[in-house]
């Protein structure tokens, strides 16, 4: 079974986790200043890279905290996990292999 390292609980089985979409998507400071196109882009448009991707994950059946993970979408390898609010680790795709 795939193990995911929760920043709080350590390595745990993937069954305990829920995926939460792309990480580091900042909510616009003043939504009322956006036009419909910009607002819909914030709401719906996400990256979908082949390779390293920063994602939000929730340890739903564990500590129930949200955290971020750097995952290779090609190999499904979790390269790094880090607490919510921390910056994306500076890891190049080649180093992660």
């Amino acid at each position, binding site marked *: 079974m795939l193990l995911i390292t929760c920043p709080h609980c350590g390595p745990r089985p993937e069954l305990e986790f829920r995926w939460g979409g792309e990480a580091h998507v900042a909510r616009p400071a003043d939504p009322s200043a956006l036009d419909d196109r910009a607002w819909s882009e914030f709401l719906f448009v996400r990256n979908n890279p082949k390779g390293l991707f920063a994602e939000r994950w929730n340890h739903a*059946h*564990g*500590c*129930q905290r949200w955290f971020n993970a750097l995952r290779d979408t090609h190999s499904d390898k979790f390269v790094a996990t880090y607490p919510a609010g921390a910056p994306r680790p500076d890891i190049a795709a080649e180093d992660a292999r």
Partner: protein
Amino acid sequence: MLEIRNRATRAAPFPLAAETIGGVTIAPSPPRTRLSLRLRPLAAAGIGSVAGLVLDGPIGSTSECDGRRALRLGPDEWLLVADADEGDELAARVIGALAGTVHALVDVGHRSCGLLVSGAGAATALSAGCPLDLAPEAFPVGRATRTVLAKTEILLSHLDADTFEVECWRSYADYVRGFLLEAARGL
């Protein structure tokens, strides 16, 4: 706390008799006081302990004092467990110790019920539905965590070498008990 004072007597969600199959005994835990405590990790580290229960231990650890237990379920979440008639006193002590500190203390005693799973095959029976590594090196006595058992969420505590406690929400109790009996039957 008004809710605690008005505690209702509830029917047990499963048969009260212990059942032994394949060397595994499955028995209901006695009724308990269960308080969910939420507190910021920094505040917990500053306070250290309440009512003799250590708050700043590692996540997944249990602290025991006078038959009461505090399970650290996450960075900001603890489950305080005590005898059924100790709820008022324990809550008062926690509220007293945390006066002036932002926290939430909620009686969740009626939400869950517990099963004691004991015997040489206890870990094997649990492993039929729990994906955690339950070997003593990986999940030693004193560990407690939320996890999954088959299709339900449970709270798993390792009480002593051959005894685990499984807590689940009341409405899942029958399923959890049935699943464990079925798993023990296959040992």
